[in-house]
């Protein structure tokens, strides 16, 4: 069974951490993954950096720019990850923009992911209709879960359509924003979390955007399966490097 699905069956709130591959140093990728697993994180999103990350705020943009400057590229990431399954068993997702995947070749990319032991992909600018018409069979062939996003503005009909197309979890963007733009949740978010919870979707939801500490983690996961932290972790890496990853994870829960 796919490691993501297996993890989602556990009776616990999922803590997922995003980091940008190649940041802060080019070869930090494996150490970050190992330390995150060691400190009890449930799911890891490995960011494949892109020159024009238009859904991201300044923190992830900056980390992407530096990662690219450090020399990160698709083939190198695969090279860094080639033996990753010898040391970790945590579910791994690659998150990035569609163009680098498209240039690598979607099938070649998916095949490589399977060889390495990647469990899923999040490609925010690969839209639902294009995925279903052109790429779904390829993702399935290589055992990859494709994760779709929903936002507070997503219509009920479209949430249902996304739920139907999903086979793992739904990435629930907490508010209308780019990453790292807002911290904390108001009544509007609570209402949105409750509204989605009441829809009783087939796939569990994991909340992303706006989660930075234990308080926001608890709020986000009250009615959902888990939460994703990205920008706050990148900031931690910027300030502390890769030596104190445990400190960051342990203050979340």
């Amino acid at each position: 069974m796919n490691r993501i699905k297996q993890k989602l069956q556990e009776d616990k709130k999922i803590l997922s951490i995003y980091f940008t591959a190649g940041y802060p140093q080019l070869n930090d990728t494996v150490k970050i993954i190992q330390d995150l697993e060691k400190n009890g994180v449930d799911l890891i999103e490995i960011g494949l950096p892109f020159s024009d990350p238009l859904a991201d705020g300044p923190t992830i943009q900056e980390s992407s720019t530096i990662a690219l400057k450090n020399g990160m590229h698709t083939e190198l990431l695969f090279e860094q990850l080639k033996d990753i399954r010898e040391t970790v068993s945590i579910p791994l997702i690659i998150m990035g923009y569609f163009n680098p995947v498209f240039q690598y070749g979607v099938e070649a990319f998916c095949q490589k992911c399977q060889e390495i032991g990647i469990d899923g992909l999040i490609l925010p600018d690969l839209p639902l209709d294009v995925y279903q018409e052109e790429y779904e069979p390829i993702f399935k062939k290589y055992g990859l879960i494709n994760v779709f996003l929903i936002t507070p503005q997503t219509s009920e009909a479209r949430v249902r359509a996304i739920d139907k197309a999903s086979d793992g979890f739904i990435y629930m963007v907490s508010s209308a924003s780019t990453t790292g733009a807002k911290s904390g949740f108001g009544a509007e978010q609570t209402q949105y979390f409750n509204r989605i919870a009441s829809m009783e979707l087939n796939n569990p939801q994991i909340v992303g955007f706006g989660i930075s500490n234990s308080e926001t983690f608890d709020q986000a996961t009250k009615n959902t399966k888990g939460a994703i932290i990205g920008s706050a972790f990148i900031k931690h890496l910027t300030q502390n490097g890769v030596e104190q990853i445990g400190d960051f994870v342990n203050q979340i829960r």
Partner: protein
Amino acid sequence: MTYHADERGYYGEFGGAYIPEMLYPNCEELRQNYLRIMAEPSFQEEFHQLLKDYVGRPTPLYFAKRLSEKYNTKIYLKREDLCHTGAHKVNNTIGQILMAKKLGKNRIIAETGAGQHGVATATVCALMGIKCVVYMGEIDIARQAPNVARMKMLGAEVRPALSGSRTLKDATNEAIRDWINNPVDTHYIIGSVVGPHPYPDMVARFQSVISEEVKSQLQEKEGRENPDYVVACVGGGSNAAGAFYHYLDEPEVGIIAVEAAGKGIHSGESAATSALGKVGIIHGSKTLLMQTADGQITEPYSISAGLDYPGVGPLHAHLYVSGRGEFISITDDEAMKAGLGLCELEGIIPAIESSHALAIFEDRKFKEEDIVVVNLSGRGDKDLQNYIDYFNL
């Protein structure tokens, strides 16, 4: 067979809407309404009234006698340089501000490179009393000070794009990020035939007034609606889309798109997307774009800020790949020389963008009886400092 967008916004394999879910409701609202709104008689009436009384349309189709004699063919110039604000850009911003009003939006955002689209957007926002924020790369702000001042006088807030290469592509990213953060009250006025569906089609339709006028003007002057060729420069490609629009499905009309070769196509400092680009995704559209083997978008170069975009609208990518369009690249030097040539022969100072289109006559020969319409997309006032520096004036 048509070269126009299909209902999902594809031109052949190009176009579509490769957008994150955060942008889906905004684009979907626009997609579901744009054709209906544009077809409303009240919309058409207001649009055409403003184009006539405010923009100054129809712009003349001018027979350039001395230029024609020099190149031994019949050259007509479509005088978009005479539009209010100095370029064709305002045709689109008038259309989109009316669209925004119909959609109930009360805040406008836009991206700009050289500042022409920013000025055209700030202008229509002032006209309608709507709040306007223009994103502009930090580097472009420094090198286009007069246009920054114009936008400010017109009441717009100019926000510097500080990310990436701090030029047009990054200003576009910032505008898109703003739209993600303000999905309900804001309309994004994209300045070219780029971006996710329905933008390329919508902007082309607003700019299509250019070729609509050429048809009737040529009928009057030559007794025929169709020229042998229509020529326009292409950055993102909005003036070209407007000039080609009503001729796309008229195979007897040759379509010539002129790109900026910068310091030479293979110099590493160029914006000739058709020659250097590969299929990929930029700003929500599948099109030809300049990128690394790894899919990172690269920074183009041209002396002309309006052609300095790493992609090209999906319509133009399709014209190139299908062979419907003839694509020619012109270097900085060739364009500057052609710009000065138009001043000397016809008393018109063209925008450097338009100078690229004028430069093709040196090498691309036409028959004596050919009728060649060149879209003179903008005037050169904004480029004066460039001309001064280049020619030591």
